[in-house]
């Protein structure tokens, strides 16, 4: 029990500190690296809660794909982040006001909170197979329609991306495997007898 507590507080501290550093760091590359660290430690927190599938997902999807993609964008694009951050303070009064309103609203909603019975189930209840198996079982039975519909949504997104970006350019050289393979030695190589000191 003591080990779990130590692990929790360590991971939680690192999460909060690195999350803060994401917005505080001067160098955008450092920001993204801190973001990745935040994801890792959050995954650790999920493991502590017994939600190992979510932990896996977080590492695979967010660290593996999203964050690395961010890193590439940050490194590839020539964005002057110092320029972007310049007017930061002048927005503070308005931003602060909106922030205060938001917090007030959250408190208002939070005060009305009554925990429904079925929300109290902890991931540890799922038994042998753990959360991955439990999620899989429910996704392919109870939520099979939703699962398939999500597939259609992704299909639409894919078609849309192709429609909007694929262009047939003129004069693009394409590899033609058949011509490449069907080429003979006589068409491709010419034997020249080059005399020394004269060139072709």
């Amino acid at each position, binding site marked *: 029990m003591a080990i779990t507590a130590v692990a929790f507080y360590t991971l939680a501290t690192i999460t909060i500190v690195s999350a803060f550093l994401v917005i505080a760091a001067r160098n955008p590359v450092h920001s993204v690296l801190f973001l990745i660290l935040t994801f890792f430690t959050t995954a650790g927190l999920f493991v502590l809660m017994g939600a190992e599938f979510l932990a896996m997902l977080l590492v695979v999807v967010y660290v593996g794909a999203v964050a690395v993609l961010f890193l590439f964008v940050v490194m590839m694009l020539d964005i002057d982040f110092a320029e972007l951050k310049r007017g930061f303070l002048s927005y503070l009064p308005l931003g602060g006001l909106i922030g205060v309103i938001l917090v007030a609203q959250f408190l208002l909603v939070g005060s*009305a909170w009554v925990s429904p019975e079925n*929300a109290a189930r902890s991931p540890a209840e799922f038994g042998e197979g753990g959360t991955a198996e439990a999620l899989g079982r429910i996704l392919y039975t109870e939520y*099979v329609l939703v699962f398939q519909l999500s597939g*259609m949504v992704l299909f639409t997104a894919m*078609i*849309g991306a192709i429609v909007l970006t694929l262009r047939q350019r003129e004069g693009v050289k394409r590899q033609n495997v058949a011509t490449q393979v069907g080429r003979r030695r006589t068409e491709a190589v010419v034997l020249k007898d080059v005399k020394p000191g004269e060139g072709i």
Partner: protein
Amino acid sequence: MNPEISAEMVVASLRLMAPETFLAVYALFLAVLGAFVGDRGARALSTLTALVLVVAAVGSVIYAPLERTEAFNGAIVVDPLTAWAKGGLLLLAAFAVQMASVVFARDGSARFEYPLLVTLAALGMCIMIGANDLITMYLGIELNALAAYVLAAFRRDDSRSSEAGLKYFVLSAISSGLLLYGASLVYGFTGAVRFADIAAAADPDNVGLIFGLVFVLCGLAFKISAAPFHMWAPDVYEGAPAPVTAFFATASKIAGVILMARILMEPFGDLHDRWVQVISVIAGVSMIVGSLGALVQTNLRRLMAYSSIANIGYVLMALAAGSQLGVQAALLYLALYLPVTLAMFAGILALRRQGEDLERIGDLSGLARNHPFMATCFTMLLFSLAGVPPLVGFFGKLAAFQATLDAGLVVLAIVGALATVVSAAYYLRIIKVMWFDEPVARMEPAGPTLAVTLAAGTVLSFPVLVVLLGPLETAVRAMSALYGP
């Protein structure tokens, strides 16, 4: 906690959702077929898709169950109302595909992805209509919206089209955020996603739940372009390719309004006194903004956008009544209004001079002298939209006002009546331009598809003297009885 779903239940559910299943399989098939045929076969694939959509529409109506049936453990509901609504919207989608195939062939930009995206959007709308829980609802909306963004930006070399797509995407993403936030609050405070379970757990004094409800309604109001969430509509209607605009202005309205009616009447039916102000304000502002905004427009498509905002206002005014009568009036209004709108867009698409599409009101100048048929059709459609008595638009408005007054929302009804007077001004202005201004050069011939659509819509704008209106009203009454009190 939930009963397991067996393979037999999945098959039975899929059979119940036959139109959706059919469309989903067809969309996958079309993607493969299109990849092989390429854009040269776009015209043929459009015709095939229009046929498939008509078949799905007919199938949906013929195989409609006689009473409320639930598929996938209550995630989707199928009843005569959803079946007829799906039939109507698939038919409108078929028109959108067919009209687009004519228009794209004119400027040689036909691509096979167009029918595919319309099919996917129609599939999303069918899911929206049948949705019976928050998750299915959201997925239906997103499936429809994702296809819609791409359709709006379909002419990617045209800066206005790209702008329309981008604006639609950004604003729609924000509204999806509102909707999801609201849905999460509703789930958090009731512990349920199924509409029936939410209704059972809904407590009118729960601030959090009301908060969530308002967010959900705002998100939905955006999707049907009700003011004050209408900012995207004029730009998207103007910038998107015209057949796409026709699709947005007709088919998406059916899906959005039926989903809105279901949300209001089923999960939150008992909370009527909580949401009545929200819906009344949205309805009133929509009618005012729609009518006043249209007054200053010179572009026909922007004018239609404002007109659709105003008309959604009347539909919401009927829904604000929160009664059987209100839902009835809203459905009747939609059923009468949509064919007229479709015909208006067919007419606008037919306006073409020297290879250039016309969309300004001034271009209609003297249309009556050169093209008396077209001008007569336009005039009847505009009179119907303005709500002049012998035409169907009048009966729709009559029903909406009846329901509103019946529920005691007098102020809202007065705002609606004033907005009707204002809107008559801009509809009449177009009629004046067509009949009394000096004619310009002749238009190009419209071609059969557009002419037939225009004529059919015009015929439908007469109540085909009570013959059609009688059964329609009975049908609408029977369908609205499926909603709660």
